[in-house]
């Protein structure tokens, strides 16, 4: 007998409403919720097949402790005791600043808030961050700056369909998040102007009115050269209800987003009308984790610094994230492996769990209560649809047990009590304690308390014209990031839909012909810093002299790029696009 339980999807931060269909304790299907304002009866392919990972056989089912080179299953008490001893040792020997804590966009608001209290009040460390430091923190920082630290609701997905103009940064933001894309296509059909700015796309789909080949530095270049476009776009986007839609994970620098906003608001009346902002993310609680304080304060270290500054951090506690898969370079991975103590709390037997010293099983989001904040700034409550997690226990249990063992105390709050506290402490979350509103499919939309103030940041333009014989190598955070997501890997259908990207250099067909090579053949790529041999693959959508290598091939990219660039606003380093030459092997 099938039971249909209404909840929200926890794959990405669109936050669609859905029913999980259960046959006993088994998730056997999904149905979209037609009354949910975000998706109104539609889902993307991840959502439709989300039941599959709920039946994974690869769950982390027992606490694990490293004994010698092996991880051994132990009871909770033993694992807690060993962890406590390691943490105490590091605290007494090196002090609290030798410990780092990682919260997660795959944890609820309540759990992230708990992690932040645990880090700051129990461990007394300021080294708190999330894996979004490597993809997304730039966008979050820029938005946070603009709204002076109180990032409220920024948009409504539903009203996108009435937008007079929408700027889409990267076509995957329309493609890969169908409830958002659906509204954009509806808007187009009703006469809205859709503008696509995509770094690597030659042929825009038919519903784009304007097509700008390059965002960020290249966008600046184009806008400089094409005065008419440069005048028209800010005017279009100044109309009330206009929107900017982007995948926050793909934004490389805070200044690129800030300069775009400042360009849009040039010559506009004060206060600037600002378009709706939809920062999409491949993680479900990207905004919420940030809002709950999962970022360093008072001189604390960022995740990059925790791993990069040699020997400062001795122990790292990672809650709810497969950190290893997010690290952008081989050297950082090595550093993670060399920590004195790595504690992981997660749901699956992930790569990060495999290298941990201690691991604790926690429930899936589908097994949790608590709330997530979606890309619009809508806080929605999860319903625990099943309970299949073996020995897993809520994160609150893990944190309060460690707290007690460390001789400290924190009030053991339920999720409801936690929301009460959050509503008192985080201004834009002031309304979220209303339980009856949280139980409705609309959830609660965050308050917008501050008027946006856009710092005036000029566009960074590309240095000089492209040298003859050189190719521009883009290193984007592509769709293939999904193929590293454990929730995808645990779904037989989605594993096929999001295949592991083959390490290949993608290029235009014409360029391949000119170089007299065949697809699949290897070519030598040389940058100022190093070289690499890569197989070539044709990508019809690429303009000539443009190459693409997805950013998750970090070792090769590290070889070619050498030093990463530093974004001082977002406190984060990234790999800039490169000028390279190609040689036949």
């Amino acid at each position, binding site marked *: 007998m099938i039971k249909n339980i209404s909840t929200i999807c926890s794959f990405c931060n669109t936050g669609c409403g859905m029913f999980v269909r259960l046959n006993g304790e088994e998730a056997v299907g999904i149905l979209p919720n037609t009354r949910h304002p975000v998706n109104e009866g*539609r889902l993307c392919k991840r959502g439709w097949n989300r039941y*599959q990972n709920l039946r*994974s056989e690869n769950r982390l089912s027992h606490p694990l402790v490293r004994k010698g080179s092996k991880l051994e299953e132990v009871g909770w008490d033993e694992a807690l005791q060993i962890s406590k001893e390691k943490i105490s040792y590091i605290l007494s020997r090196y002090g609290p600043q030798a410990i780092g804590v990682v919260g997660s966009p795959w944890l609820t608001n309540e759990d992230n808030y708990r992690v932040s209290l645990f880090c700051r009040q129990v461990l007394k460390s300021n080294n708190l961050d999330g894996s979004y430091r490597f993809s997304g923190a730039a966008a979050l920082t820029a938005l946070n700056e603009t709204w002076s630290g109180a990032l409220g609701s920024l948009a409504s997905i539903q009203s996108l369909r009435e937008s007079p103009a929408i700027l889409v940064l990267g076509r995957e933001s329309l493609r890969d998040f*169908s409830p958002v894309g*659906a509204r954009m296509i509806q808007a187009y059909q009703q006469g809205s102007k859709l503008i696509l700015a995509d770094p690597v796309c030659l042929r825009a789909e038919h519903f784009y009115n304007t097509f700008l080949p390059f965002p960020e530095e290249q966008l600046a270049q184009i806008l400089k050269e094409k005065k008419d476009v440069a005048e028209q776009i800010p005017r279009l986007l100044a109309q009330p209800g206009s929107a900017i839609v982007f995948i926050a994970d793909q934004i490389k620098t805070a200044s690129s987003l800030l300069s775009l906003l400042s360009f849009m608001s040039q010559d506009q009346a004060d206060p600037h009308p600002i378009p709706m902002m939809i920062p999409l993310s491949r993680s479900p609680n990207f905004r919420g984790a940030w809002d709950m304080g999962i970022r360093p304060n008072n001189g604390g270290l960022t995740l990059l610094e925790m791993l990069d500054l040699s020997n400062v951090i001795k122990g790292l506690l990672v809650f709810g994230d497969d950190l290893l898969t997010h690290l952008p370079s081989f050297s950082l991975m090595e550093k993670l492996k060399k920590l004195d103590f790595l504690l992981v709390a997660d749901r699956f037997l992930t790569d990060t769990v495999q290298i941990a010293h201690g691991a604790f099983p926690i429930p899936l989001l589908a097994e949790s209560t608590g709330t997530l904040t979606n890309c619009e700034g809508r806080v929605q409550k999860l319903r625990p649809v099943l309970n299949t997690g073996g020995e897993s226990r809520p994160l609150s249990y893990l944190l309060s047990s460690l707290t007690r063992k460390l001789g400290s105390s924190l009030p053991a709050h339920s999720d409801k009590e936690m929301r009460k506290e959050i509503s008192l402490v985080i201004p834009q979350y002031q309304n979220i304690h209303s339980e009856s509103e949280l139980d409705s499919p609309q959830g609660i939309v965050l308050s917008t308390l501050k008027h946006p103030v856009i710092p005036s940041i000029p566009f960074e333009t590309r240095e000089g014209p492209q040298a003859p014989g050189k190719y521009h190598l883009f290193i984007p955070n592509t769709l293939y990031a999904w193929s590293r997501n454990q929730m995808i890997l*645990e779904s037989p259908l989605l594993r*096929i839909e999001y295949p592991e990207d083959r390490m290949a250099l993608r290029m235009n067909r014409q360029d391949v012909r000119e170089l007299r090579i065949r697809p699949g053949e290897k070519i030598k790529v040389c940058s100022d810093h190093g070289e690499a041999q890569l197989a070539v693959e044709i990508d019809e959508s690429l303009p000539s002299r443009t190459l693409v290598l997805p950013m998750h091939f970090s070792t090769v990219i590290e070889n070619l790029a050498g030093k990463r660039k530093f974004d001082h606003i977002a406190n984060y380093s990234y790999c800039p696009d490169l000028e390279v030459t190609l040689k036949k092997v």
Partner: protein
Amino acid sequence: MEKYSLRKADLNRWIDSMIDRCQVFVPSRIEEEIFFSPVDEAPEMDLLGGTAVLPYLPPKDIVFPQSEILFSYSGKGEETKVEVPEGPKRGLVILGIRSCDTQGIFWLDQFFQENFNDFYYSRRRNKVTLVTIACNQPAKNCFCICCQGGPFLGSESQNFDIQLISFQDGYLVECNSTQGKELIDMRPDIFFPPEAGMEEIRFHLEEESQKKFLPAPTSYMSTAIRRITSNGIPPELWTELGERCFDDGGCSFVCPCCSCFGVGYLANDGKGYHYRYWDSCGYAGFTREVSGHNPREEKGERFKRRFFHKLSYQYLKKDGRIGCVGCGRCITACPGEVTMPLVVERIRKAQEAKYFK
């Protein structure tokens, strides 16, 4: 075919008797969403009247679930144990299914039972009795009339066990099979011979209902069938329509006729299971080969294939009907709104537009 009359007030008593012997599925509301669910209390009568109210999902998942375990195993070597989960023990009645969905199930029968008898499908299907309700008033997305799907099932179609036709306070009951007869025979006290004149009212109701459809864009269905069959559609149109497809698979999942499935396994440490799940020809992975090559890499290509299977003469001839019953569910589910009516209309209108100059 045998005919009876049944008072609406007696429907509950009939269902009560069925529940003693079978599992009875009727459309019911859960948080305002409608599902076919097993009844345990009085059904919602507004969902069982002459006005079409379609659940989001057709009842196809009762015979062909979204996912189902084929077998599970544990142990190693000699010790290996393989288990096939049990099928339903009791009879299943789907009551309140509409004409279109009924036709959908008969279409699935052809796929799962005609050339090869699918064990998992059949052990459910053979236990099912369908009690259809004809639609006096179609819903806003309905176009069954263009697809031989409804709104009434004619006696010539044979494709139902029992058809209920809603009158003011009663139903005309048409019984078409022995399974249907068994259900009626359970309660001789509530089934009466039809009153005089009922037959005329029935045909009047059917005619009235049919009038409520026009003009529907899908009445161009025949043009679409002809163009698709003769390959008369320029690739640009498929590309354009394909661009609006999000390959989320929703259209296949909600379609009463779609029967494609994939088989996957989940295993760990010597135990696990194989299961099959709804798949969609819209997915890139559906046709991708192990080498990585995909004969239908472009979305437009997959889109074209989907509509070729649904509308081309080749399949019409083979299956006796087109692969769409006109329930209009794709209109609710498709984020890109590239639905059957839209595609048919675009194909037909393309004549005047750029593609057929």
